[in-house]
């Protein structure tokens, strides 16, 4: 894994890491990601100190987006490892290309090659190594180390967590047949979790932790304006205020920011200018994904909420 490269050239090509918290906010803004200052601080520290970023929060608040935004604005490759139960080394780190290796052996024998050591040396080389995400993350591209997104780590089991801990401490992988592969530059690591299971303390201690909560009214409006510009201004204000109120209800699963954006797009598609009770009831399925919740909000309750949001918006305009 030894690559010789011109260090200066790399430095010139690399987009510089943000130098301050304000810089980080600007960086996020460049990709239309509306984040708050706390998130920018944690991202800045993560980049500066070289520690993985551990994002936890409800579903649909933009955890995965952070990694994509970082990759986009810092001009790095994004390597995504989607976790699931039973994820093991063969799927996460590397695997040998057995069919190709066997074919190579046959060919070598057919060609009259009898030196066993030589064959073995050829077979177990990088050429026949299938690199999976974690190993890919150890390679440095032209623009610098990639962004490694480990998504939904709570779905993987504890055995995988232990292995991940090992990799995140040294950023090196030992392949018995080849040797130790070490990353010349640490990748930018973002780990997300939906909190369906408690992650082991040892892993969290290594990372910088941040909880991504639901945004407040102003920020969510900014997000909708940035990501769903087709929706008219009045509709944006009303639907965001409605969703904010919805989150205060005792729902089994509150709608996330992703749902708000979907709803804005849906209403814009239906040429809505303002919130209409019938339309809201019809499109509730975009916001709420559990029948119990829909039953709670449907009909009269939706009407009441719309009236409350109108009143609130009038107050805000006056005040």
């Amino acid at each position: 894994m030894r690559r010789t490269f011109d260090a200066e050239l790399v430095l010139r090509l690399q987009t510089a890491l943000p130098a301050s918290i304000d810089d980080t906010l600007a960086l996020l803004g460049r990709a239309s990601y509306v984040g708050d200052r706390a998130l920018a601080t944690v991202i800045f520290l993560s980049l500066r100190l070289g520690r993985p970023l551990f994002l936890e929060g409800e579903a649909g608040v933009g955890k995965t987006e952070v990694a994509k935004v970082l990759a986009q604005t810092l001009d790095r490759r994004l390597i995504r490892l989607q976790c699931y139960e039973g994820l093991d080394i063969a799927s996460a780190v590397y695997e040998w290309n057995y069919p190709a290796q066997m074919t190579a052996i046959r060919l070598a024998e057919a060609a009259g090659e009898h030196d066993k050591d030589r064959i073995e040396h050829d077979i177990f080389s990088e050429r026949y190594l299938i690199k999976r995400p974690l190993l890919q993350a150890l390679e440095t591209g032209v623009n610098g180390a990639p962004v490694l997104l480990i998504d939904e780590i709570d779905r993987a089991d504890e055995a995988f967590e232990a292995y991940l801990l090992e990799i995140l401490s040294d950023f090196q992988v030992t392949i018995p047949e080849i040797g130790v592969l070490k990353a010349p530059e640490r990748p930018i690591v973002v780990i997300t979790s939906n909190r369906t299971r408690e992650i082991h303390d040892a892993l969290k201690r290594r990372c910088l932790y941040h909880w991504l909560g639901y945004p407040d009214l102003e920020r969510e409006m900014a997000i909708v304006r940035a990501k769903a510009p087709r929706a008219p201004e009045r509709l944006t204000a009303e639907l965001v205020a409605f969703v904010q109120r919805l989150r205060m209800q005792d729902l089994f699963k509150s709608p996330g920011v992703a749902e708000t954006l979907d709803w804005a797009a849906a209403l814009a598609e239906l040429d809505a200018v303002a919130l209409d009770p019938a339309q809201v009831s019809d499109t509730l399925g975009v916001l709420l994904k559990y029948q119990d919740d829909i039953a709670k909000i449907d009909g009269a309750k939706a009407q009441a909420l719309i009236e409350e949001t109108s009143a609130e918006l009038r107050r805000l305009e006056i005040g």
Partner: protein
Amino acid sequence: MTTSIFEAGPRGGLLAQNIVHFARALREAGLPLGPGAVLDALAAVEAAGIGDREDFYTTLHAVFVKKHEESLLFDQAFRIFWKRKGLIEKLIAMLTPKAPGQRSLKPAEAGASRVADALFKSAQESAKAPPTIELDARLTMSGAEILRSKDFAQMSAEEIDQARKAIRRLVMPEDRRRTRRFAPGGRGVRVDARRSFRRSLQPGGVIDLEFRSPTERAPPVVALCDISGSMNEYTRLFLHFLHVLGETRRVSAFLFGTRLTNVTRAMRARDPDEALAQCSALAVDWSGGTRIGEALARFNRDWARRALGQGAITLLITDGLERDNLDRLEAEMDRLAKSSRRVVWVNPLLRFGDFEAKAGGIRAMLPYVDSFRPIHNLASMADLCRALTRPEGSFDSRKGRLLAVP
């Protein structure tokens, strides 16, 4: 070359000292921080610079807080510490659930702690009050058989002690289930390509196939324990059972009375007495009233998605006597049943042979459980272990019989 902010004069050094003190305060308040965290904090503050208060707050928060629940504690500690250091000791005492130096008496109260006996023998001889629930049924011949069928609520302190020892000797349920993770070995279903290939490289040329088979694991258990007045003694011994169960698998334990308390971490303590003492300290509503529906609602909303993952079995220990809002109780039981792999309801009221499901709460809950069992003595506990070992889907005759009677 900029100088480190910590070296820049006496003010810089003072800041570093304050951060160390703050970390110590947080540690006392309950946040698990190692010395590494302090070093990280200093590095982080140096990297972020001393901007305004909010940035400083977020910087320390990023380093010291590793769980969403700790955030509130950190917030309070931060506001207090960076305003007036003098008050910090008093306020830590108010923040923590267990103030140092006061809990050592509690184990003695809860019924003969071995440590309390050993250390405080002379001093506490007179202060060791007898347990509050006591029918002095000290049997002259207390054989193992009599202990097995003795009702928990009628046990003396000594018998409780013996019961706890007996619980530790119970045979835990053998209900391991296949997982999606594969491990080498077994006459498995999948070919282990890697090992087969390595073997084939050895002289001989014949490719012997190696196999992988799924690993097995005992499903995690989530226990919801009623700690109201009538349930008190039964739940305490059940917690001992849960502690032993916790050695074979992941157990998440919740206590509910007038509020819901998560005692999973407390139960992880190796010493069972200490685990129980920590649980006692955490929950403040022992022997109070109970609102089952509300407790289940809180559990479903806040914890169910986290704790019930990976095929968990729910153990519910409560007498089911709910007074108000049976509709809500039914709705929450419905949701709980839908989120769990299996719901096992253990009820000490079943100690009465002529038990009939007449109470509204019991009738509301019964249709949603998979298994309805007694839990009033050691024999019933052993039966529970055996029942958990049996495969699922077996029809519970007791439940059917009780529901049939109008």
